[in-house]
């Protein structure tokens, strides 16, 4: 099976984020990491390859820093990488990102394309499904299990409130992968060494721009959420805080 994994670099979970001066995006001088569901998507691709042989290709769209995500993926066992490298890729809406990815892989044929189910920055949860539509492929979302069958694959979709559903999907197909589908592996030292010699194809904005268009949606303004509640912060030493909190639980919230 030849599998493409779309990955994104996002700010680290506990990185302190600040708004830029225009109030339209964050200041980008923060630490980054791989978007968590994308890490599970990569792991699943590596496992499928180990079972059925084939090739795992990873792709990302982002500035030079985003290459780190690809390096880590190669170190974990991906065979080669594609980097759509430009600062402009950060500001694309999901439709344009999907169009850029589609253009970058137009000469390749994948059996499966994985994305994480959503990104920790925008959280649109759309790029994978849009990519499927652009490529004319069937898709299934929020996947917790993948089994190869004679006709294609059988996937387990997560639905709401603890419900699941198996769906038979013909290949090629696009799947969006849920966190927790598997247990992530660490890169080995030998893997990290080998990663340096693996192919990394660079794609510029100019290479794919003809396939793209104007963003169809625009962030007018970004801001810190207004508080919907009057939050009271309890301060002091741990034992003082414990006393204050118990007083609130007893007299204000009346749960003790």
């Amino acid at each position, binding site marked *: 099976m030849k599998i493409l994994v779309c990955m994104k670099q996002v700010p680290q979970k506990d990185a302190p984020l600040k708004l830029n001066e225009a109030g339209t995006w964050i200041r980008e001088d923060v630490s980054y990491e791989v978007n968590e569901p994308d890490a599970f998507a990569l792991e699943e691709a590596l496992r499928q390859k180990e079972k059925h042989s084939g090739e795992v290709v990873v792709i990302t769209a982002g500035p030079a820093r985003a290459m780190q995500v690809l390096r880590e993926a190669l170190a974990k066992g991906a065979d080669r990488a594609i980097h759509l490298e430009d600062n402009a890729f950060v500001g694309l809406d999901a439709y344009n990102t999907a169009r850029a990815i589609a253009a970058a892989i137009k000469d390749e044929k994948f059996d499966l394309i994985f994305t994480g189910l959503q990104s920790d920055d925008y959280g649109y949860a*759309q790029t994978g499904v849009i990519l499927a539509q652009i490529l004319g492929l069937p898709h299934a979302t929020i996947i917790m299990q993948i089994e190869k069958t004679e006709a294609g694959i059988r996937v387990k979709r997560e639905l709401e*409130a603890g419900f699941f559903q198996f769906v038979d999907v*013909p290949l090629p197909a696009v799947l969006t992968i849920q966190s*927790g589908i598997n247990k992530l592996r660490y890169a080995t030292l030998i893997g990290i060494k080998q990663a340096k010699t693996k192919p990394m194809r660079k794609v510029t904005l100019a290479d794919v721009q003809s396939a793209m268009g104007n963003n169809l*949606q625009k962030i007018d303004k970004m801001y810190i*959420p207004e508080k919907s509640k009057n939050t009271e912060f309890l301060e002091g030493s*741990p034992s003082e805080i414990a006393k204050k909190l118990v007083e609130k639980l007893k007299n204000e919230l009346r749960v*003790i």
Partner: protein
Amino acid sequence: MAETIFVIVEQREGKLNRVSWETIAAGQAIAAETGWSLEAGVVGSGVSAIASEVAQKKVSKVYDVESPKLEPYTPDAFAHALKSFLEKYPAKLVLMPHTYQVRDFVPKLATSMETTAITDAVGYKYEGGKLSFTRQMFQGKFMADVSFAGTGPCFVTFQNGSFRGDKAEAGGGAAAVETFNVDVPDGVIRNKPQEVFKEAKQAVDLTQAEIIVSVGRGIKEQKNIELAKQLADALGGELAASRPICDNGWLPMDRQIGSSGQTVAPKLYLALGISGAIQHIVGMKGARSIVAINKDSEAPIFEISDYAVVGNLFDIVPPLIEEIKKARG
């Protein structure tokens, strides 16, 4: 000419998903402010009863988009049917609840119509004749006002709980219902869905719990879960967790709170080391009171907390357990 807002309600196996009333309420609010007309629709096979139910609300018309091929749900058939419908009855704005089903087909539908969807919105603004939608970014650390730059139709999905479903106004009389029979040609549907099922019998029903102590990534290690358990026991409450804890297998999946787990509304929700990602918040924001302990003073969970403690939970929880025991005698 007045523009049209079209709300698509969600049905599953012939039953209306109650979250649809929230979307109707959203549509009514936007219609009142913009002066646009509001219509609604349901998509499925033999779902005219749902169309009639929706027609009781204050909407100018309800469409019943029908095909035998729309049951069971597939993204291919739903996107095809709604595209056919919207080409015949154009709308300026198409609103839906942000459910797993909608997430599955709406990006495909919007792309097939060369337009876009603003997903997981929590509100809207109408200022100077311009409509924008508010959504959370960076896991709830920021909000953004997002507007459409294209020509439409513009698709918007609303997060659970963004509008009050019980505020959806009833109409003066039943609105007209029109059936739209759609042809879904062979070959359109590529996926074969099987029956929907529940993994195992849910051992714990957290929806009935009055007190919930919930743990997130801040608990750091599996062995520390015991500390949270002691706190829950001292309070006479249930132990729950955010998704990553259950993904790690530190607590069983049936103790997970959030969009993929249970939705709860206890008297007290005590969040330990939970940052408050959107997927978690939607499962617990209905709690009557929320207490959060987190080392990150900017954690989004504090936005919705009544009482907040910025600090290390491992310092605070042990004396807290002692004080609770004292208070309860």
